[in-house]
């Protein structure tokens, strides 16, 4: 049984308010049958230093990625990951995490590849919950294992591969990396390790909209109006556009994918998870360097 939606007025303005919950809503609903809270962080130890009571941990790196092939886990493994955490196919899953919910939206996107129907983000994530002085615990929950069906991952609707992007050239692309990565000056995020792209720059025609522009100071999402000002007015994107978002490995662009799809109601947004670590290494794909979008 899905839980009722959060009727908070800020959320109500978004295209799909059912995809977000506020911290008061979560505090009121903790422990309700049918709800599982999931923490997904960049830092693999952060959950263990303290988490929302009852929340389980999913690690994007060691659990959502296949350990051998560069791909996500398959349906059988995803079913295990969910089942062990007490998540059934009709469970309401609320995900939160560090760094403006960057890794939380990444986990939500992977849950969406498996068509999990009711998966939501805690607006403001871990930072807001902590800033409000809400309860944290180091007590490990012991969820009752449930049966999650083995569902085949659907990579067609919200995921783009390199060939899809090549066929998409000329249509809207959003590069969500930092300006230095976009122009090609940097081969990796500022302050992050080099991850082995041999060429710098961006995909021809891509607009540069760093992902964190969608986040407010308190790590919540900006209001519908402010988001619309960035993506629709400033960038000229429209909800009926066919859009591909990318970054370095597809994590930051999951955040933008979430904003465009669920907050602004875009209908055809795909996340290119191969992103720059694939494109910047691929042979003979077109690349543009500098601050201009360039032509496809």
């Amino acid at each position, binding site marked *: 049984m899905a839980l009722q939606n959060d009727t908070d007025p800020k959320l109500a303005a978004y295209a799909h308010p059912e995809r977000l919950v506020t911290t008061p809503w979560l505090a009121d609903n903790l422990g309700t049958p049918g709800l599982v809270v999931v923490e997904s962080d960049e*830092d*693999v*130890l*952060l959950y263990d*230093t303290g988490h929302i009571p009852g929340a389980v941990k999913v690690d994007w790196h*060691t659990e959502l990625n296949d350990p051998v092939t560069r791909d996500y886990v398959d349906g059988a493994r995803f079913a295990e990951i969910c089942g062990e955490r007490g998540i059934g196919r009709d469970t309401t899953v609320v995900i939160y995490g560090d760094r403006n919910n960057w890794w939380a939206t990444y986990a939500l996107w992977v849950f969406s590849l498996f068509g999990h129907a009711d998966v939501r983000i805690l607006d403001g994530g871990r930072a807001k919950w902590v800033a409000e002085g809400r309860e944290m615990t180091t007590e490990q929950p012991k969820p009752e294992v449930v049966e999650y069906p083995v569902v085949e991952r659907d990579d067609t609707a919200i995921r783009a591969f390199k060939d899809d992007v090549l066929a998409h050239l000329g249509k809207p692309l959003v590069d969500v990396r930092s300006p230095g990565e976009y122009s090609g000056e940097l081969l990796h995020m500022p302050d*992050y*390790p080099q*991850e082995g792209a041999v060429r710098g720059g961006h995909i021809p025609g891509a607009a540069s909209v760093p992902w964190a522009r969608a986040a407010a100071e308190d790590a919540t999402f900006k209001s519908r109006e402010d988001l619309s000002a960035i993506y629709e007015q400033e960038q000229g994107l429209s909800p009926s556009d066919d859009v591909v978002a990318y970054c370095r490995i597809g994590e930051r662009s999951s955040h933008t994918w979430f904003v465009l799809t669920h907050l602004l109601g875009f209908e055809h947004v795909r996340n290119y998870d191969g992103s720059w670590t694939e494109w910047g290494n691929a042979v003979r794909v077109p690349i543009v360097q500098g601050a201009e979008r360039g032509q496809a």
Partner: protein
Amino acid sequence: MSLPPQLEELVEDFAAVGPKDRLQLLLELSRELPELPERYADAADTMEQVHECQSPLFLAVEVDDDKHVHLFFSAPPEAPTTRGFASIMHTGLDGEPAAEVLAVPDDFYVALGLAQAVSPLRLRGMSAMLSRIKKQVRAATG
């Protein structure tokens, strides 16, 4: 591979347990990272940033008159993994002779067996930390 005794002991501790307990060990180490002494507390700009770590990590290296190495780290509490890596360096290398620190193999961290639990990508911060420590030790002992 010859490691300073404290580092050798840490490597043995990690090797003795399974992947889940290795994370617990790293968490405990992250809590044991000493606070910065006052002379660095207000002087973060005199420290070197380790850009390869996921989260801001600052490092200072001192070599005393007896050519022993002293290490100082600063990393925020919301970055426990980075703090854990720094704590491994501190526990294993602080107070050791410069020559011993320089002799630590660059890939010593492989022996900690953290790749599975932490992921290889996150481990890069650790090798970067060691190479920056060695660089500063070399500069100081010239």
